């Protein structure tokens, strides 16, 4: 089975995948790790970088304007990610259960409509929402007016701009995660529910002691994917808000581009990326550790 000819074909089969991933995904991230400890202008080749130890990290966490801008961006990304997950997960489980139980009549059509948002390119979503959110004559405020809620400032106020971008993200992603939730729900056998019903479990009790535990793997997967997507948010910020008003929507990916490309401070940008990467690793490990601990109990 492991003759020489076989092994050579194995290497030839793996190389076209390993090569591009190593060069275009892994290498840039390794360069980021290295450059975080260097002074480097992104207008010059990598060879011009000089080692500066932890200076970049001292600066991005310092009291100066670089530090306060970055800390604001980090907070914005954390808030955006946390709010997105906190809305997307419960909504997709809710919609998933409703569609799953309503099978089959109308369910297919509903699924088709709900999932359609996934097909719409981010640029279209961003531009349409920028019109929807218009504070004076925007359709969203017109709809809210019909049910007696006053005008909201949406993107024009620092206090509501980030939440408005979260809503846009939820609008686009819930359909996708709903389909994932349905896939998880269909794997729970009906017999489990029937057994629980015989034991007298009803309604919310069924949900808490059967649905949620058996859906955990799906939920953890969804949370991790939603998190990885959310920390990379870029398009709506670049297309609609440019980080404003007054830095309220300046998220890390957008800030890194500003610092790293426009101001050419590649070392600082890399240190920011590494900080967010570390935060992401900690968050994902915490999710997995929590799940494992639960399992051991």
């Amino acid at each position, binding site marked *: 089975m492991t003759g020489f000819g076989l092994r050579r*074909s194995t290497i030839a089969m793996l190389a076209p995948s390993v090569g591009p991933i190593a060069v275009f*995904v892994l290498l840039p991230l390794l360069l980021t790790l290295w450059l975080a400890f260097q002074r480097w202008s992104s207008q010059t080749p990598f060879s011009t970088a000089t080692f500066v130890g932890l200076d970049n990290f001292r600066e991005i966490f310092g009291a100066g304007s670089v530090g306060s801008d970055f800390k604001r961006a980090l907070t914005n990304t954390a808030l955006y990610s946390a709010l997105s997950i906190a809305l997307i997960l419960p909504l997709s489980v809710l919609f998933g259960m409703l569609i799953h139980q309503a099978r089959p009549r109308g369910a297919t059509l509903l*699924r088709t409509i709900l999932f359609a948002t996934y097909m719409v390119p981010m*640029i279209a979503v961003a531009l*349409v929402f920028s*019109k*929807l959110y218009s504070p004076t004559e925007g359709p969203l405020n017109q709809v809210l007016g019909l049910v007696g809620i006053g005008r909201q400032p949406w993107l024009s106020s620092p206090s509501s701009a980030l939440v408005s971008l979260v809503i846009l993200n939820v609008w686009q992603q819930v359909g996708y995660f709903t389909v994932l939730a349905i896939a998880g729900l269909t794997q729970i056998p009906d017999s489990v529910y029937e057994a629980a019903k015989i034991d007298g479990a009803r309604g919310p009790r069924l949900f808490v002691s059967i649905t949620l535990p058996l859906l955990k793997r799906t939920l953890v997967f969804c949370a*991790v994917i939603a998190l990885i997507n959310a920390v990379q948010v870029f398009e709506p910020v670049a297309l609609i808000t440019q980080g404003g008003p007054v830095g309220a929507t300046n998220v890390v990916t957008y800030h890194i*581009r500003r610092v790293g490309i426009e101001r050419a401070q590649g070392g600082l940008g890399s240190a920011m990326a590494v900080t967010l990467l570390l935060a992401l690793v900690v968050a994902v490990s915490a999710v997995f550790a929590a799940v494992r601990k639960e399992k051991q109990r």
Partner: protein
Amino acid sequence: MTSLALRHRIGQVPGWIVLLAWAAAVALPLYILIVSCFKTTAEIYNDKFGLPSAWTFQNFISAWTHVDFGRYLLNSLGVTGAAVVFTVLFAAMAAYPLSRYELKWASPVLAFFLAGIMLPIRLASVELFTLMKELGLLDSRLGLVFVYVAIRLPFAIFIFANFMRALPRELEEAARIDGAGEWRVLFLVILPIVRPAVAIVAIFTAIAVWNDFFFPLIFIFDQDLRTVPFATMSFIGQYRTEWGEVFASLALSMAPVLLMYVLLARQIREGVGAGGGLK
């Protein structure tokens, strides 16, 4: 209708109201996008909800002629087509030994591909930009294809491996006894059986690449090399924007994907279940 069935129906009413409310929330922006294609810019500003006063295709015509839309469409088609072909081909090749042989070092290789999924590459966009510059791949459609293939491959490999793992061993053993080499086994025996995986990988790669705005923004500076979503940006002027044309060009760029979705909605949803739709 028995009273029990009736009660069951009534019990479902709140659920239906929630779902219909969400369907309306999904439909409203899409409705606005579509009607705005037929409105003048003044109408878009004054009456966002209403139907256009006249259904004309003027916006589509001016969007098409104002910029070189046909050229952008060809760029998008070329980049998307190449990315899909290479992703399907390379992913199938990598998944075959990983799922059908008993390799001692399979798990480090799988970990490498898993890292490709989990690592947020956009955080390294400055380094990727400089790397592409040093490789001479800026302002190059080929450079875009390389990056898209590298990003889409890991998921494609896992999907192919999942499908291939489920096949019985006897399949390729019979072919090997007949003297077929490993490449023949892969392309003539295994690949035809995992056609659903080919469809899932192709569909999701096509959607992701076709809709992408991020990488052309970083890598493409030459007007002539722009892809469709990025080209839409050229309608947004610094002082004055013809919003009707913007929406028309968005609709034009979405048409192929939406058409595919209407035709293949079920396969696409099943692909999500298989893990195909991740960024």
